[in-house]
């Protein structure tokens, strides 16, 4: 790793720590990191759409035409149509001509709805309904290993769980007797589902922290003291310790501010 790359890695480490500082309280370092994320993302998006989409999918398609003929003499002149529709979208910013943007928007929404409705219905509803009512595979009832999602038992549990959960949301009949019992099973099914989601979410959040730990340790700290690096110089540990000193100063400053505030609030009026 050369020194320039290490400086970028250090910036990543600094922004990581700045972001985590929000767990204590909102502060200027966190604000800096937050604004950088928004700004860099927006800038990156504009550039990548321009070079990755506008240039190859529009400008290069019309490149063999002439601008003074409005590219109508190009080999693929129909690409002008989406280009014009895209430009019309920008009239949204004008109070006077904003209504024009409704035309490309209407076309886009119409196409999207037309494509989405049958496919969503087929894949999110019909196929799920069919999957809930499959034959139970008694020959593979227990499946392979602990709770195999491809086993017959899983099919049976999904059927019972789906029906009981639907009954829980059926409000045209009082939830009493057997009906109430099945509805209760339904809410247990929902609770188990929410519990699984919560468990996965906890793992996800901890994963984010672990990833940052790995970055700070493996990518930053180890690089700062890696004497086997052919580009290694005293600048590596110097930058590392400068960042650490900055963090320490900030912690002391926050601690002093906290103690001062505490003394002021506990002092007799």
């Amino acid at each position, binding site marked *: 790793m050369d020194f320039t790359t290490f400086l970028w890695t250090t910036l990543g480490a600094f922004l990581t720590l700045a972001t985590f500082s929000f*767990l*204590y309280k909102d502060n200027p370092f966190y604000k800096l990191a937050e604004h950088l994320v928004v700004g860099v*993302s927006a800038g*990156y*998006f504009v550039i*990548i*759409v321009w070079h*990755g*989409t506008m240039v*190859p*999918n529009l400008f*290069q*398609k019309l490149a063999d035409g002439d601008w003074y003929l409005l590219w109508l003499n190009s080999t693929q002149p129909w690409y002008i149509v989406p280009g014009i529709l895209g430009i019309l979208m920008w009239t949204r910013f004008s109070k006077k001509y904003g209504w024009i943007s409704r035309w490309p928007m209407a076309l886009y929404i119409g196409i*999207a709805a037309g*494509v*989405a409705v049958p*496919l*969503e219905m*087929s*894949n*999110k509803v019909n*196929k*799920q309904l*069919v*999957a809930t009512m499959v034959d139970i595979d008694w020959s593979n009832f227990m*499946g*392979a*290993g*602990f709770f*195999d*999602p*491809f086993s017959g038992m*899983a*099919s049976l549990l*999904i059927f019972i769980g789906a029906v009981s959960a639907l009954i829980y949301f059926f409000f045209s009949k009082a939830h009493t007797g057997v009906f109430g019992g099945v509805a209760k099973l339904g809410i247990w099914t929902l609770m188990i*589902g929410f519990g*699984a*989601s919560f468990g*996965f*979410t*906890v*793992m*996800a959040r*901890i*994963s*984010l*922290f*672990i*990833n*940052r*730990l*790995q970055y700070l*340790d493996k990518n930053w700290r180890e690089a700062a003291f890696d004497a086997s690096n052919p580009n290694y110089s005293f600048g590596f540990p110097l930058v590392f310790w400068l960042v650490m000193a900055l963090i320490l100063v900030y912690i002391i400053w926050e601690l002093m501010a906290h103690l001062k505030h505490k003394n002021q609030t506990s002092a007799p009026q």
Partner: protein
Amino acid sequence: MSIFDRLMRLDRRWVFLFLTAVCIAGYYVDYSIPIRVTNETRSIYTFIDSLPPGDIVFVAIDYDPSNQAELHPMTYAIMEHAFRKNLKVIFTALSQNGPGMADQAIRDITDSVSLDRTYNGVEFKGREIRNGIDYTFLGYKPYYAIIILSMGQNFRISFPTDYYGTPLDSIPMMRGVLNYDNVACLIDLSGGNITDAWISYGQGRYNFPLALGLTGVMTAQYYPYLNSGQVFGIMGGMLGAAQYERMADNPGLAIDGMRVQLPAHIVIVLFIIIGNIGYFVTRRREQLEGR
């Protein structure tokens, strides 16, 4: 003030601090935990492992840096497995910041595959992974649903060039490769709604084998698609990545991270139990005091 009253008033920052200390301790203490591989992850590994050399795997890297903790290890494990098996890979990145993720993964895995390694007792000689021969990175385009639909007709409609600006017809690997019919399977590694589009507009419309690598937050809600056969495998969060690494005998960041998950989860479960005890004891006392 009793201990339960103190618990109910505990500043949450103490919880953060304690959890941070536990994670750091778990990270630096040298130990390992067993990783049990679930059938939904095994099916993805088995599918890729059974493909003959030269087959094409489509890997959709649909996540931003905010999800790299969970999904990057999956990408690395799958890519390394595919390249070691001499499979060819087509990449897309339909998430806004995905191209950077894909670009980084391609560079790292290209370096890794150049080294001799032994996985599951089989020795793999290092080889050079070449752009256009072993992989093609199509890049990013906005409006993922339309892009997914158009790729079912021809990759060239949305991607006349690859990410690096080379026309697709000039790329040796892409000769004769028109659409999803020419790929063995598609693996979507996603941290957002793009997964829904791959299921509805991709697999549902063009009927190719689809597997999912998902963030932990998303995983539970996609299991119904496994049961319905719309996807043939799911990797959920860091655990899913660790399972794939275990099967591929290629320990990486996910297996390393799972060591830290264990103490962190124990602490969180203990906090939930203690918090509930505190809540019920306090409520019971208030009821007795007639408040």
